[in-house]
Every structure is written in structure tokens, then in C-alpha cells.
């Protein structure tokens, strides 16, 4: 069942809608109610052809307050963050930013975080960086570390415990 099938029986969630719209106004100076469904965002969407993301429908659902339908669907995780929708919107609406907030809301509700996001988050928590420093391969198959290629030590949080405490506190915060 797709998002649109669900909407016919969906109940609007007025409070969540108000909260998301409040955040958008505060952070982006953006007012989704101004969307008139021209679908210019969808025509340029990098995730449209391969993954069927339709940013203008995301706005339509937000305007109707049908948040659950979106946070329960994988479609919100198909955005490539190319920012073309925001760039080209004649009403200065940023579907890409709405998608970020919807994904944040899904995570806050305890929905499963797809793919490597959990690993990236854990890595940032424990090491401060989204991945470990790698020994890489040359074109001829030799392996090289940063030191081998003459680069200095990496920069990372000096006190991992304090850093971890900082992120853990933020994780439960809202803007």
C-alpha cells in the first residue's frame, strides 16, 4: 500500500504538523502553506526517477497534517539531499528540509533507522568522526596509511568522554 492509499483513511495530526511548521519557519523562514502544487520540485528531483520520491506530494501531505503516513513509509529516506527542490521552488519552500524534519521525527518516535545511519551515529559518539581512519589502496594494490603518504595525525575530539556527554544530551533536544 502506498502513501496515497493510506491518506484516504488518515487522521490529521494537527499538533505534530504545527510543531514541524514552527521549526521550518524558525530555521528556514519557510511557509509550506504557500505551496500551490506546481510540482517543479518533483520535476527536478534526483530521487524521482529511480526511487519515486515526489516532493510536492510530501508538502501536500504535510499541509493536510498526515504525518504518520509519511514517517511510516521508507519514501522519506530516499532523498539524496541535492537541494534542487529548495533552489527551484517559486514559493521558497524547501521539501528537502521538510524531509529532514520528518526523518528526525521518525527517529524520535523510535522507528528503525535504515542502513548505515546507526553506525555513523555510533562512530561519531565514540570517535567524533563518521568512520575510522582507513588504510587505503593505491592503483597498483599497495596499502597506504596516512603516515605512509606523509600526512599528519588526524584531528579528533581530545576528551572523548566529555564529547560523548555533549552528543548524548543533544540527542534528546529539540530546536
Amino acid at each position, binding site marked *: 500500500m502506498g502513501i496515497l492509499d493510506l491518506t484516504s483513511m488518515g487522521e490529521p495530526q494537527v499538533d505534530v504538523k504545527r510543531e514541524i511548521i514552527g521549526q521550518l519557519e*524558525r*530555521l*528556514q523562514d519557510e511557509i509550506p502553506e504557500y505551496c500551490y502544487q506546481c510540482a517543479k520540485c518533483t520535476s527536478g528531483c*534526483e530521487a524521482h526517477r*529511480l*526511487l519515486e520520491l515526489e516532493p510536492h506530494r510530501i508538502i501536500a501531505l504535510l499541509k493536510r497534517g498526515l504525518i504518520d503516513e509519511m514517517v511510516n513509509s521508507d519514501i522519506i*529516506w*530516499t532523498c*539524496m*539531499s*541535492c*537541494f*534542487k527542490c529548495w*533552489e527551484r521552488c517559486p514559493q521558497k519552500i*524547501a521539501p*528537502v528540509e521538510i524531509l*529532514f524534519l520528518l*526523518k*528526525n521525527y521518525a*527517529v*524520535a518516535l523510535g522507528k528503525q*533507522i*535504515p*542502513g*548505515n*545511519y546507526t553506525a*555513523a*551515529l555510533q562512530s*561519531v559518539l565514540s570517535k*567524533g*568522526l*563518521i*568512520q*575510522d*581512519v*582507513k588504510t*587505503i589502496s*593505491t*592503483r*597498483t594494490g599497495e596499502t*597506504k596509511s*596516512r603516515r605512509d*603518504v606523509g*600526512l*599528519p595525525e*588526524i*584531528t*579528533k*575530539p*581530545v*576528551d572523548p568522554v*566529555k*564529547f560523548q556527554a*555533549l*552528543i548524548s*544530551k*543533544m*540527542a534528546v*533536544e529539540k*530546536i
Partner: protein
Amino acid sequence: MTKKTLVFYPGCIMQTEQYSYEISLREILPVLDIKLVDVEGFSCCGEPLKSVNRMITLVLSARNIALAESRNLDIFTPCPICNLAFRECKNILDNDDKIKEKVNGFLAEEGLTYNGISKVIDLLELLYDIVGLDYIKKHVKKPLDLKAAVHYGCHAIRPSEIGRSDDSEEPRKIEDILEVLGVEAPWYPEKLDCCGGLLNMNLPETALTKTGEKLRSIQEQGFDLLVDICPWCHRQFDSKQKKSGETVAYSLNLPVVYLTQLMGLAFDIPWGKLGFNLNLSPVNTLVEGR
């Protein structure tokens, strides 16, 4: 004489695996009289976690900017994704005292304060607006006779609302720099297409399809090479070129280089000092005989 001294913020992907970008930057910037200052204690910029928690992104960016500000210098972010995160963070904190106060409450834990005094500078602003084409031209010793496809990467040019260093639909700065190096860089229809890189987080196969499709079009149009400036894009186009070719069932053999590597070649710096052995795409054709 040093033209400008900047804090060097490497971000995660460049300093953990995209060494040829860092090597070539550290090689060419001193030639252009730009001094980089390394600072201990940086973390991820936060942008890759924006889907998980926007507050984490904002505070991580503010934390890194605050660290750099303690040196009283502007910040150079070669990765366009980090640059976007920092500029967005500045836009929010510099225009909303309540959020700034809240974020600073968190940063106090590590003894840091975000003040908003440092500018955040990306590669295009540094090379084009601060160093300038004339100054680059002075250092070109061996003009390169090549035809390049240019890939800016989405985060380098959008969203202009946040303040980017080139036009969102018709960027020109890389082409103008390449012209000074003797490289021809004509427009092509797929120029603004996304590399798919950020989908690596959850849909890696689709990411490779995007990458492979763009590389195929460029190769079919007869370009000698692809030039990029983003470590995420370069990881797709160069490090994962073989895999992306397999994904779209096409035999790809397109040399992919960072703009900074190509500048080094034109400055007549030996290619061994520019990380060319680390490109996994067939860059041999560009460096052999040099």
C-alpha cells in the same frame, strides 16, 4: 609573503580516506601563499547526521566553528558538505540569540563558546575570490592540454538561500580556473546531476547507479577526464568507479581527479607529490611522461 592564514578543517571523509585531496591541497596552497593551521580536537561537521537529528548537526557545527574561533582565524572547509553545514549553522546562530544561547550552553561543557567571528571559506571562494585567477596564472608552468567534464557537487552550489560560492544553475568558477590551467571544460547536459553519494548511507546500490549513469554519459561524450572538488563525490566517481560500472553494466575507464591535483600538475609539481598514485580510476594517461 603569506596572503592569508586559515584554520584547516578537514572533515571526516577527506582525513579518513580521501588522502589525495588532502595531499594536493597541502601541496598547492603554500605555492599560492595560503597558510593552513592545523587544530586539534575537531569532530564531524554534523551534516551526515542531519536526517537522524538536526540538533546534533547544529551543535556539532557550532562546536567546530567555536574551536576554530579560539585561534582568531577564518576557517577553510575543502569539503562542500562541511562548508554547507557550517554556513547554515552560522545563519541560524547569528540571527537567533535564543538558539545561540542554548547551543552555547551545550558547548560550555567542553569550555567552548560560539561567537560568530570567523568566516567559513570553501575551495571556490579561496581559489577564485581570495587567491584570484591572475595569481593562479602566474604559477602555471606547464599548461595542460585536456578536455575536462566538471562536476561541482550539489552541496557546493545549493541552496543559494544559505549562501554558496557560485551560481546554483550556471556555476563557472571551476571552468574559469581550468581555463587558466590550459584545460578546456565545455558544458554538458549532465553537469548538474547528483553523484548519489549521500544515498550510500541507506541505499548504496541506487547511489552506484546514479554514479555509473553520470560517468557513462561523460565517457560517451569523449571527455579526457572528470574534475571534482568534493570528497563524497570523488569517492563515488573515483574510488567506486569500478563498482558503479558493474552496477550499470558498462565498462568505465574515465580518469577522475581533484581540481587541486590538476592545479599541482600545471604548477609543475611532480605527480608523485600530488596523490596521483591513490586515484583508483585510470589517471595514468594524465601523468605518464610528466
